[in-house]
């Protein structure tokens, strides 16, 4: 079987599992709570995918929580205060984050390595403080009792029905999140395997060399950061619709660090690494919930041990090369 066929088969199997097998398994086993878990995994992996893209240009991004929070607030404010349709607020939240990322990114993307990591971490904290201070975000009380998403129709044709009329909202949200996750990662895969992707790889390896042969490094960095933040924004927007509330503490620093951990854990050389990493970390954390107060202790010990014995990510087990494995 040729590589192309294998690839098609793999994608087909993945889509089958996500859209048919999992809903069927949940239906059979009656574990409806898994929908919430899997929806969260899908959304978090979108945000982690964004972080992964900034890793791809050689920057350590610990600021995705800030953009998820911003996206969530944009969506919540538009829906609650201006009555905009929720479906329209998803791209708007993404665009808002992308524009913000361009403005913030222009100065800070000149920083490298640890400097960039530090300032993005600070950014997460600042997003929280901004949400606390601004009048429109309603301070520490946050925005709650956000209505469920309404109907989406084009020319009178209903594409997505009103969520308040659907009897199984959890399943509906699962499908929304899964579709978006698939779309995001397809886009990410396309970006990475395009001309821009190759240029990004050149940034990761040697920025000076890349710019010396005529790559517009400043432009590329900002574009990659904007796409990354766009993904953070849309995942935050849908999260808000699911939990139907948002507070300044909805996406704390721990979330930003988790997004980064997801990418690391999955392996940085592989587009689908963040998906795998998110799944492992989220489920691991959930399973450890049964251990009560030892949850954090076990979780962090496992992380440390993983770093001691597998410092290059889970996927490095299977893949011999680290960077640019895909042909």
């Amino acid at each position, binding site marked *: 079987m040729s590589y192309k066929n294998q690839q098609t088969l793999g994608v087909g199997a993945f889509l089958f599992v996500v859209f048919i097998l999992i809903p069927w398994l949940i239906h059979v086993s009656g574990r409806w709570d898994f929908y919430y878990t899997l929806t969260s995994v899908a959304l978090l992996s979108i945000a982690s995918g964004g972080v992964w893209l900034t890793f791809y240009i050689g920057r350590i991004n610990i600021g995705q929580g800030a953009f998820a929070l911003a996206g969530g607030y944009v969506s919540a404010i538009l829906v609650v205060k201006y009555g905009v349709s929720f479906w329209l607020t998803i791209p708007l939240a993404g665009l808002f984050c992308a524009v913000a990322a361009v403005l913030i990114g222009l100065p800070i993307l*000149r920083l490298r390595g640890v*400097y960039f990591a530090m300032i993005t971490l600070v950014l997460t904290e600042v997003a929280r*403080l901004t949400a606390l*201070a601004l009048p429109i975000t309603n301070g520490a009380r946050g925005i709650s009792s956000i209505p469920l998403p309404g109907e989406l129709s084009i020319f009178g044709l209903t594409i997505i029905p009103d969520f308040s009329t659907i009897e199984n909202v959890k399943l509906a949200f699962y499908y929304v999140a899964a579709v978006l996750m698939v779309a995001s990662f397809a886009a990410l895969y396309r970006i990475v395997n395009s001309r821009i992707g190759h240029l990004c790889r050149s940034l990761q390896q040697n920025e000076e060399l890349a710019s010396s042969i005529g790559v517009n490094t400043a432009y590329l960095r900002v574009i990659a950061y904007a796409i990354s933040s766009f993904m953070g924004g849309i995942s935050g927007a849908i999260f808000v619709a699911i939990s139907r509330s948002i507070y300044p503490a909805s996406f704390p620093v721990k979330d930003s660090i988790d997004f980064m*951990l997801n990418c690391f854990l999955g392996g940085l050389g592989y587009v689908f690494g963040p998906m795998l990493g998110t799944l492992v970390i989220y489920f691991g954390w959930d399973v450890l919930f049964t251990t009560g107060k030892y949850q*954090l202790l076990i979780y962090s010990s496992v992380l440390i041990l993983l770093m001691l014995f597998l410092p290059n990510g889970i996927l490095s087990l299977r893949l011999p090369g680290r960077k640019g494995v895909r042909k």
Partner: protein
Amino acid sequence: MEQVLANGAYLGAQYALIALGLTLIFALMNVLNFAHGQMYVIGGFVTYTVYAQIGLPFVVGLAASAVTLAIVGALIEKFLFRPVIKKSVREESTMLLAAGIAFFLDAIILLVFGEKQRGVPKIINGVFNYNDFTMVMPYDKILVGFLAIASIIIFILYMQYSKTGRAMRALAQDKVAAQLMGVDVDKYSMIGFALGAMLAGVVGGLLVTVTGINLGMGGPTSIKAFMMVMIGGAGVISGAIAGGFILGMMEAVGLSVLAAYGDITYLAIFVSLMVFLAIRPQGLMGKPWG
């Protein structure tokens, strides 16, 4: 105005001491120690246990904090950072490890000391009153401020004139050259990490007398330390001190000037930090690109 300046100097002295430890570790090993805030919290809890619960003198508590953190730091360096740095192919791995250690220490603090806010009895009572209430400063704050400044001076002298300090400065300047001159990298990395952790512990022990201590203080402390290091330039001792005092002053001034507009001090500080970094990415005294 005198009040604001005094508050700023007091905060700055504490902050500088925190930033010093972080920047020392960074300079020696190129590791961003996420767990620095948690080390500070442990220091506070150790002092609390020795001074408030067992009832020994405050100085003993402070020394206990310093020793505990030095041991913790040395162990973390020897058994966690050293193998990972040797094995991993990208420098980011140490960051993940540091994040894991931060969570781990948080878990330990939660299990050993609980999640309650803890305070200790005042070390000295009374308030210093300058020029008929234009400036008021409790005596314990003044003492803590002077102890912090004294620690900074001792640290600088140690780095400047002792053999260990000279070896560490050489390592920070050029690792390969230092190795060629016979500096034992492993040994001095361990000493440096222990020293950095010890400084965090000392600040924790000092500040528990003024602000108390709780589990949630670790993360925000790390973030403040990162900001100071960015202002001054990563890996530079004078930069860390400058960054600490600048952030302390900005916070004190911001809290008094911007109070009318709500809680936006840190927002303003961050925006000015961004503008500053756009002009000077390496900080005040840092080497370009760390």
